[in-house]
């Protein structure tokens, strides 16, 4: 088991390294000159060449990569071409906001989705089940950024109960929380629809198993059966889905941050991509992929812990 975890961690770093390599070379092989992005289109040729030299973009690609890699390993992700600030510092400032948002969204999804799924399964084919099915189908597909726009309009502009811009300062936890609610709902509601659907189908499966019938036959109260016996087993597959959800939620955060004008990795990467700010793009995407890969790994491990039937092959 320890060995397995270790191997998975190694694999995780290999994935991050591979992403870094791909992004590094994709940026440089594909058209789009960062020097013009730094200087603007009108700069005289000698200035362009001088800047190119200063930034090291005139060296051979493998040399650029070697230089970048050696400083990357020491934790130096380079300097932003636009703001001239260290990339690591920028990421360190933005990452907590995005992680907070992603976790809040997942939590929202679980808190709303799982109980609804259980209820739908228990009252199968009743009006609640049908209603939740319709709502579920609608929200699974709804793009989170449209949910965000609606929430912003209704609760931000019309009702005015929540801030419409920014994420608050870290020393003001209440502000942070206040500003987090709408974005977390926007990302979390579609996830909740997902969770509801999965919880429902797994619950139905579990409720049909023999040991549940036995528990019922023993005269246990229905509520006890549902919550202690069935839910525990139905949650196992729900956990595995979480891993993939985290990846998607982080992707969705990119747009949510734009809607709410929140600081975060999403805004950072979008601005860096449109400004051809290579060091920032590289740094942010590696961090993104590291997150996705880590969450997949954690879920795989958690799955093994919860379900003894799973053997790591």
């Amino acid at each position: 088991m320890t060995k397995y975890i270790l191997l998975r961690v190694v694999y995780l770093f290999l994935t991050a390294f591979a992403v870094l390599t791909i992004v590094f070379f994709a940026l440089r092989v594909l058209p789009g000159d960062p020097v013009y992005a730094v200087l603007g289109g009108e700069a005289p040729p000698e200035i362009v060449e001088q800047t190119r030299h200063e930034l090291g973009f005139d060296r051979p690609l493998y040399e650029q990569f070697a230089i970048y890699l050696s400083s990357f390993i020491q934790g130096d992700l380079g300097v932003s071409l636009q703001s001239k600030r260290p990339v690591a510092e920028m990421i360190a400032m933005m990452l907590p906001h995005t992680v907070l948002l992603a976790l809040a969204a997942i939590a929202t999804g679980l808190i709303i989705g799982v109980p609804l799924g259980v209820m739908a399964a228990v009252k199968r084919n009743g009006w609640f089940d049908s209603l939740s099915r319709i709502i579920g189908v609608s929200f699974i597909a709804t793009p989170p950024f449209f949910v965000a726009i609606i929430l912003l309009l209704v609760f931000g502009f019309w009702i005015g109960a929540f801030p419409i811009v920014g994420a608050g300062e870290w020393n003001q936890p209440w502000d942070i929380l206040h500003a987090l609610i709408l974005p977390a709902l926007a990302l979390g509601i579609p996830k909740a629809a997902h969770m509801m659907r999965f919880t429902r189908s797994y619950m139905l499966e579990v409720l049909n198993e023999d040991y549940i019938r036995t528990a019922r036959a023993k005269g246990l109260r229905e509520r006890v059966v549902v919550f202690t016996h069935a839910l525990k087993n139905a949650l196992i597959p729900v956990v595995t889905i979480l891993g993939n959800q985290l990846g998607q939620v982080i992707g969705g955060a990119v747009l949510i941050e734009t809607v709410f004008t929140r600081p975060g990795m999403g805004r950072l990467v979008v601005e860096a991509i449109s400004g051809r700010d290579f060091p920032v793009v590289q740094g942010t995407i590696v961090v993104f992929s590291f997150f996705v890969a880590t969450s997949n790994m954690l879920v795989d491990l958690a799955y093994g812990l919860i379900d003894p039937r799973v053997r790591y092959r």
Partner: protein
Amino acid sequence: MNLDKQVPALLRVENLQKYFQVRKGWLGRKIQTLKAVDGLTFDLRRGETLGLVGESGCGKTTAGKTILRLYEPDGGRVVFDGHDVVGASEKQMLALRRQMQIVFQDPYDSLNPRKTVEQALGEPMAYHRIVERRRARERVAELLSLVGLPVACMNRYPHEFSGGQRQRIVIARALCLGPQFIVCDEAVSSLDVSIQAQIINLLQDLQTQLALTFLFISHDLRIVKHISDRVAIMYLGKIVELGRTEEIYAHPLHPYTQALLSAIPVADPSNQPERIILSGDVPTPTRLPKGCRFHTRCWLKEEICARVEPGFDAVSDDHYVMCHFSRSGKVTR
């Protein structure tokens, strides 16, 4: 049928090896070598049927596929009609493929469900330019009547046929390039007993009609006895006994063969030999025992068996056994 030793071998298999690398352990890091076929040696004479028997998993299918180079061998030689199969270039291989065919066990898996009989038979003939395009249909019809199917079924799909009929189609497909040699890998094992007999008869008829040579792979010792001229007994990737059918069935010399044969019910129960029940572990093909590979289950085991692998020796004309005691009389019953 020609049992004469003087007749040159159509197929010669020498020390053939096929190893699989199986991944075990976490993340598939541990790689083990599974010796599915581990030094197979035999001759096949023109026009004869050699039965290849052994327990399931002993490597019979792998042997058949490796001989046809559906698997790349890891060692050894296969010589077909004077041509080296293992070292054949792609072009030479194409020519050899016309000569050597295979019929698989599962007739439900052996036909592409989305192709009609005509397409299934026509495709390889077209690729090999066996007949002109406008004569292709005729040739398909010929093949169908050869295997006893009505010509009208040419435009049907596999799901419209029964298992036995499908196996006839599969045989027709194996014949479509005009081969000399066919590997029948458990060709009747999945069929009902009554159908089995029909297909066996068909194979025998085809053999005389088309001068075919068969490698008849089976785990059913009774069918093998019926159809084979000679029999090879395989155990964990190697042949442990080889000889003429009557001889093997009357005087088996290898303890493993004796155990297998003792399990066949005979018509006259008073004649039924005492059943030999093998004890001991069946070794996994990834960890073959040292010495004789049968010693873990052998009731004649002595100290030497765990140490030295016995040679494949001729005990009499045309009868080979791989056992330290094949001549000692210890094994005779």
